[in-house]
């Protein structure tokens, strides 16, 4: 096992078998609203490497790419957990804060930096894109 995690109340738990394919931070309006902060931070894994226990609630919306995005949260405590994009169903994103130990995490890229609030401080060493 590479990592494990859970929501705030523990109704949803998950394990991941292998290291992430990619790690990213996104400052887009939808991500800021979803987390209530200046950004979302996610690690992306192969879908087959992730095992989830418990039933999440989902919210579907259309991403800028035009593809449907499904965000998963805990119906009991509201914690942010997973995100899927119809563009790439073999991959699942997991919110960095959901892991029991996230010391391995480090965003590789900052997306939608053009929408970053001035108060949300970022590491200037991390590659930044105005949009996607």
């Amino acid at each position, binding site marked *: 096992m590479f990592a494990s995690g859970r929501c705030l109340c523990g109704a949803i738990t998950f394990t991941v078998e292998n290291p992430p394919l990619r790690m990213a931070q996104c400052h887009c309006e939808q991500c*800021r609203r979803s*987390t209530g*902060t200046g950004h979302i*931070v996610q690690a992306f894994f192969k879908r087959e490497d992730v095992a989830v226990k418990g039933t999440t609630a989902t919210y579907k919306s259309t991403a800028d790419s035009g593809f449907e995005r499904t965000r998963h*949260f805990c*119906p009991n405590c509201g914690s942010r957990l997973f995100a899927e994009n119809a563009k790439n169903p073999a991959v699942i994103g997991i919110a*960095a804060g959901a892991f029991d130990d996230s010391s391995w995490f480090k965003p590789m890229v900052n997306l939608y930096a053009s929408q970053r609030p001035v*108060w949300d401080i970022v590491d200037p060493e991390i590659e930044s894109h105005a949009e996607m």
Partner: protein
Amino acid sequence: MTTRPIIDTQATCSCGATTLTVKGPVLSMLLCACLDCQKETGTGHSAVALVKAVDVTTSGTLLAFSRPAASGATTTRHFCPQCGVTLYAQSSRAPQTMLVPAGLLGGDWFNPNQVIFARSHTEWDTLPETIPHYETYREGL
């Protein structure tokens, strides 16, 4: 000491089923790196405006989740059952106030004046160095 803005803002959750309006002074602006905020937001810290409860109105049906917080008080988080977005949180220590997420409210007025629960801050999360960092909860604003 950063200035405390007076706001008149309406915010909606992602799906639009719930709304929140704040009209009044912001008492404090906090970044909280406690483990509960990490789990709830899915990020390294929450970013919240402390406002008077009497200045807040909400519409739509919210779900509440209560849990003992790292401060020793009970924190209740109110979220939209359709999209999971947190509209506000309240601490049993200060029921006359509410904590409203800055990312939900939007706007340029937010200007954090303190970091709390810095003890559980992760290495990968970036916080402003220019404001006070408190290891745990801090009394006062």
